[in-house]
């Protein structure tokens, strides 16, 4: 099957993720959307790697996963501590600092 379609899919996923970041309030969900975007990138990498017939893309995909995992660790830590002190995971509630 035509790998280009995978690119379209990747772009689609990426856009969905981005949209999610923009419209969802819950920090966890927003964060999930970011993960989605990362995975879209992975898909793109793999697809390209396939097209070019070299392995770089696939290796990069592994790196991305590791990074994503690390991000989860850090991110959740932060979000949870925020949740515990505010009893709300809404991104919009965290707006003490403005102007």
């Amino acid at each position, binding site marked *: 099957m035509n790998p280009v379609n995978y690119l379209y899919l990747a772009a689609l996923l990426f856009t969905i993720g981005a949209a999610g970041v923009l419209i969802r309030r819950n*920090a966890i969900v927003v964060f999930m959307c970011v993960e989605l975007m990362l995975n879209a990138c992975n898909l793109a990498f793999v697809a390209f790697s396939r097209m070019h017939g070299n392995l770089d893309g696939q290796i990069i995909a592994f790196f991305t996963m590791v990074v994503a995992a690390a991000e989860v660790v*850090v991110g959740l*830590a932060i979000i949870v501590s925020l949740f515990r002190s505010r009893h709300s995971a809404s991104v919009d509630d965290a707006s003490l600092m403005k102007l």
Partner: protein
Amino acid sequence: MSATAVHSLWTTAAEVEPLGKIPTPHIEYAQLAPVLIVVGAAVLGILVEAFVPRRARYYTQLFLTTVALAAAFAAVVGLAAGGYGTTEKQIAAMGAIAVDGPALFLQGTILLASLVSVFTFAERRLDPAAHGNRIDSFAAEAAAVPGSEHEKAAVKAGFTTTEVFPLVLFAITGMLVFPAANDLLTLFIALEVFSLPLYLLCAVARRKRLMSQEAAVKYFLLGAFSSAFLLFGIALVYGYAGSVSYARIADVVEGSVRTIDPALADTMGNDALLLIGGALILMGLLFKVGAVPFHMWTPDVYQGAPTPVTGFMAAATKVAAFGALLRLLYVALPGLAWDWQPVMWAIAIVTMLGGAIVAITQTDIKRLLAYSSIAHAGFILAGVIATTPEGISSVLFYLLAYSFVTIGAFAVVTLVRDAGGEATHLSKWAGLGRRSPLVAAVFAVFLLAFAGIPLTSGFAGKFAVFKAAAEGGAGALVVVGVISSAIAAFFYIRVIVLMFFSEPKPEGPTVAVPSPLTMTTIGVGVAVTLVLGLAPQYFLDLASQAGVFVR
């Protein structure tokens, strides 16, 4: 793409060499010493957290960190002395990392800046001791809910977040690699390596913890968001060039590749990939730089984060990010100059003006400095656009000058305190000059440097950058630059007026007498500011020697 093409792809893919042929990577440890030292120290730091008894941790960590940074700096100097900055420059670690002038210069800058800002991390004389324990600017136990019994207990027990030291070391590791990254993957990894610790560092302020956590969340979410863009951009560029190595990309972009297989030929035909990808990568870097319109995290994060961290971020991050930006534009995408230059023009202009204008009405000193840092990002971009060796060296010099002024300024901010910790609201600073002329004078020096008044490093840097821009044919940019500096001058002056010409308020803040640590930080800051202002020649030479990228 037509079916036949796909088929041919398929077949070529089938003819990949067997894996056994992959050469074992060999690493030039010597050339990578600075990075390795720091990362090693970071790992050690983790172990220290695990095994060294709590009482001793602070000193152990401080010692470890200082030594590590000093050693790393020594290594950088050694490499530079070994000519790696100029003649010997090479690409190490299988093409992942470049060891050349800009890399070494920026690594040196980052290390020095980190060293002095680590001192402010370790400062524990500003607040009165609680329950007989000296306290620094970091939460007793970051995990504890603000205001909870748990937290009180932690404070009573005299816990301190000594983890900040290994964290900062990890961040520095990433920053050292970032400007040296010679392929997009390394770029991305380095970005994450220094971003993640910073997210955490933002969250661990001792006072105003809610704001601190909020800052962390905002920084984290937006940071992750932007790195996702960056990654996707990498993906696209990879798709275009079939490789992530800068050299390779550059060749492909310039169409000077020796062997073109059909797949590459096919993707090469599709410039959209390259342009969109390049734009996305650019965006990821501009986010770290804090350029309009990707700047909006800056004020909030700078305000919320613990001030020492803010100072560190403001200085080191900018240095690293601009380093990476320079390398990307000058090494990977020079062939695209005609495309990105106009865009960068626009961004530079809005950044300069935007930062300066919005800063006028700020009322919080940390936010003010945040906006000023945005404006400065604009000035530096003017130098980046020059696309000449002078441009590179001027940017290097500006970064050096700027980072020390910034760290010094934020260090002074930590000194001005009232009951609620640092008194960052401008109204509190009224009449500071009458209460403690020395501190006010020092801060005035930093402000004047920010404003780019002659005889300070700020002026030398600004002049270098504008000169490079003008010679690069960006005269209009220079005019916009001077106009926005005029606007910017206004709010720096405002602070000086506040400190010196308005009567001190009776319930005004007090100025804490810091330990030698912070004094060193501020002292070094002032010294560098004045030296670079009066006799910048030596450092300009350094920068111009270092101004050539390896490729």
